[in-house]
């Protein structure tokens, strides 16, 4: 039934529309995600049947991209804490439209990240032994305890500010399916907006906002201690706790910006997620970017300067050796480019780039075409053919690709300067990718490093690992997409509160009746 009274909050329609209508785009997305998840499930069944031998893991590199995913998702889960809890506690008013999305990221990232450890286990059916025989001195137990605590807390922290919005949906969305109405009615917990209910809600939210911060910090510290407590080069480091926490918040901010960008674009939430939000989060992203650079430099400088054999072996492999391509790509796309992109409105010389002829579309296009041709020949005919017939060394091709990529990026900068939101969203995407690579750089090289008189070990993830990883990311996106179809992505009541000057308790009661 349609409301007969005029809608008092027409600006909220874009938030409510996704809950009322489901388009083909959404169905296609869900179908695609389910396909990816099914492939991941098939890969996992294969792994269960044949054992972890179907992965690229071996007796030297015993942890690979499953643990990389685990650390990555636990890191992403810090979005909710920072944006929501810290901003709430410090009373930052601009946080209001983005808290819900941040809190949801926390919950879903934990739901996807924690099972990665289960997938990595050789005997997943014995998972309950961790509770039966659990030994408190094992960092895995610390992880189990802190992640359980964090997941419980973040669910509670997601739910509490949902209550008034659930009541709002219960009363406003009368034409949605029956199950949805029942769900809203149940989750609204009888909310009528009385002063006492408000007081109770505020009490609960405040307590959770405070307690969730140390819990979140403990979670990623403990994750880092899984590595830090061993005696391996590159892991056994005292800064690992804060290094991981800063990295987690960094990638968490990137995740929330990515989500905001996606939803603003898909659902047209520009009225709530304004340029100001992107700018503020962009500055936060830059701050943590610089902090992470600082930690990275102090980590590697310390061990390289001390120059213990095992440390220099590791650093050499990262800087120049087998892992250098991942390492430098991580540094460039995860730290350097995002810093440039978040600073873009303040970089005046960027406009000068428009005048550089080499950066015009035509020369760039020609360069890309030539390089593409050589690259394709390289791929089809092989390195030897390209070397002899074309007289081009394949290293030259790689360098040329790098130069061309840099040129394309430079050519893109003036365009991005006109679109600060787009550049911040692009920065956040790059940070997400970079931080995943960083986790790979943390996990794998320290294991591949020779600790006995042998050579470096090798690790090449197999299709099983990649499928399960893709499935994990698809699950995360699917959970989020489904959440966006059932719950409002913007905390409507909190946004309204910011607009209305704080009323006296009596006035609130009247508002409720209206």
């Amino acid at each position: 039934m349609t409301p007969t009274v005029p809608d008092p909050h027409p600006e909220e329609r874009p938030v409510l529309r996704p809950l009322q209508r489901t388009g083909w785009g959404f169905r296609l997305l869900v179908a695609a995600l389910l396909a990816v998840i099914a492939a991941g499930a098939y890969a996992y069944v294969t792994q269960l049947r044949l054992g972890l031998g179907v992965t690229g893991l071996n007796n030297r590199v015993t942890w690979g991209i499953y643990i990389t995913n685990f650390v990555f998702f636990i890191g992403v889960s810090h979005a909710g804490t920072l944006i929501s809890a810290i901003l709430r506690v410090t009373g930052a008013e601009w946080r209001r439209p983005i808290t819900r999305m941040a809190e949801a990221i926390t919950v879903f990232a934990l739901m996807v990240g924690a099972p990665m450890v289960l997938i990595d286990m050789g005997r997943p059916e014995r998972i309950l032994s961790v509770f039966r025989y659990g030994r408190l001195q094992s960092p895995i137990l610390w992880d189990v305890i802190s992640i359980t605590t964090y997941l419980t807390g973040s669910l509670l922290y997601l739910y509490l500010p949902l209550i008034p919005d659930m009541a709002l949906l219960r009363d406003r969305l009368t034409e949605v399916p029956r199950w949805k109405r029942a769900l809203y009615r149940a989750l609204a917990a009888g909310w009528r907006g009385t002063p006492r209910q408000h007081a109770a809600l505020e009490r609960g939210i405040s307590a959770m906002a405070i307690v969730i911060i140390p819990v979140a910090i403990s979670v990623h510290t403990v994750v880092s201690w899984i590595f830090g407590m061993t005696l391996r080069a590159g892991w056994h480091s005292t800064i690992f706790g804060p290094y991981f926490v800063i990295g987690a918040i960094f990638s968490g901010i990137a995740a929330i910006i990515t989500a905001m960008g996606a939803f603003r674009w898909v659902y047209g939430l520009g009225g709530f997620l304004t340029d100001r939000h992107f700018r503020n989060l962009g500055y936060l992203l830059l701050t943590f970017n610089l902090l992470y650079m600082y930690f990275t430099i102090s980590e590697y400088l310390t061990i390289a300067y001390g120059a213990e054999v095992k440390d220099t072996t590791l650093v050499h492999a990262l800087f120049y050796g087998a892992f250098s391509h991942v390492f430098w790509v991580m540094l460039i796309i995860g730290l350097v480019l995002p810093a440039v992109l978040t600073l873009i409105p303040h970089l005046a010389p960027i406009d000068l780039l428009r005048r550089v002829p080499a950066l015009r579309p035509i020369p760039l296009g020609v360069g890309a075409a030539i390089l593409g041709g050589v690259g394709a020949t390289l791929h089809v005919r092989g390195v030897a053919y390209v070397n002899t017939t074309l007289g081009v060394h394949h290293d030259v091709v790689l360098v040329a690709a790098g130069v061309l990529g840099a040129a394309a990026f430079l050519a893109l900068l003036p365009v991005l300067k006109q679109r600060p939101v787009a550049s911040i969203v692009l920065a956040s995407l790059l940070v997400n990718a970079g931080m995943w690579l960083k986790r790979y750089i943390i996990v794998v090289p320290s294991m591949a490093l020779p600790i006995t008189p042998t050579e470096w070990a090798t690790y090449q993830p197999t299709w099983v690992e990649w499928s399960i990883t893709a499935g994990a990311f698809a699950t995360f996106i699917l959970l989020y997409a489904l959440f966006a179809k059932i719950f409002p992505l913007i905390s409507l009541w909190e946004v309204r509160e910011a607009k209305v000057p704080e009323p006296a308790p009596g006035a609130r009661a009247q508002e409720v009746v209206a």
Partner: protein
Amino acid sequence: MSRLRLSRRTFVKTLIATGAAATLPSVAKLAETWAAESHSPHARKTQRRWVMVIDLAACDGCKKCTAACQKEHFVPFGQEWIRVFETGNNPYDKQNFPLPCQHCEIAPCVKVCPVAATYHNDEGIVLVDHNKCIGCRFCMAACPYGVRFFNWTEPKHSPQEQFVQYSPEFPVPHRKGTVEKCMLCAHRVKIGRLPACVEACAAAEMWAIWFGDANENLVTNGRDVAKLTDLLAEGRAFRYKEELGTHPRVYYLLPDRRDRRPADSRKPAGKSDDPYRP
């Protein structure tokens, strides 16, 4: 409105009251376990403390220890519970370096195991209980000696293996998804036999591996019986990665204290950059 409006006093009061109520029973239980722990059995009179001494001067790298170990334990393919490394850059510098589990007193693997699947038995041997192991491989990440192995797939089972009754001291048949390692032949030691590698080394007339009880200060290589402390002093013994503080129970006797075997009988090792020459 959304700033903190929590009634602090009520909050703290409730917290303390319920906190005390909830934690008291658990504290009492903890005190109980603590009391039990402090009465843990003292070292028995005949407390065994098994040690191994590997004489690098005597080892010629024949790998018969590895073969005997694999036969004894039906070791799954791809694992070498005692592995003989070759170190050194050139034939004159070549050194064989057998590496079994070091059975550390302060074992990093035992520390990190979440379910107590890897543990010290009461004779100081580090064992793995494959009925408990969850296959998280944290112990493999923690081990600084790289002597742990994982059954990545279902190991091939030989017919004889099927008749063996599993125990952590003789972890056969092997199981998929669990961690394996040298268990210092706990099953043989228990009945007064020497570990398989020691016997094999003696049978090869090299007598490079010694085994015995440190509390008795007696070790044997299958031919001679020696005083452990004398052997270690004369052989200028060291322990691998002593600086890590793991207190290994495997000692190595320096290779260079006696005349080396002629270099012409050795193959070039071909290892270019070994960061950890023992």
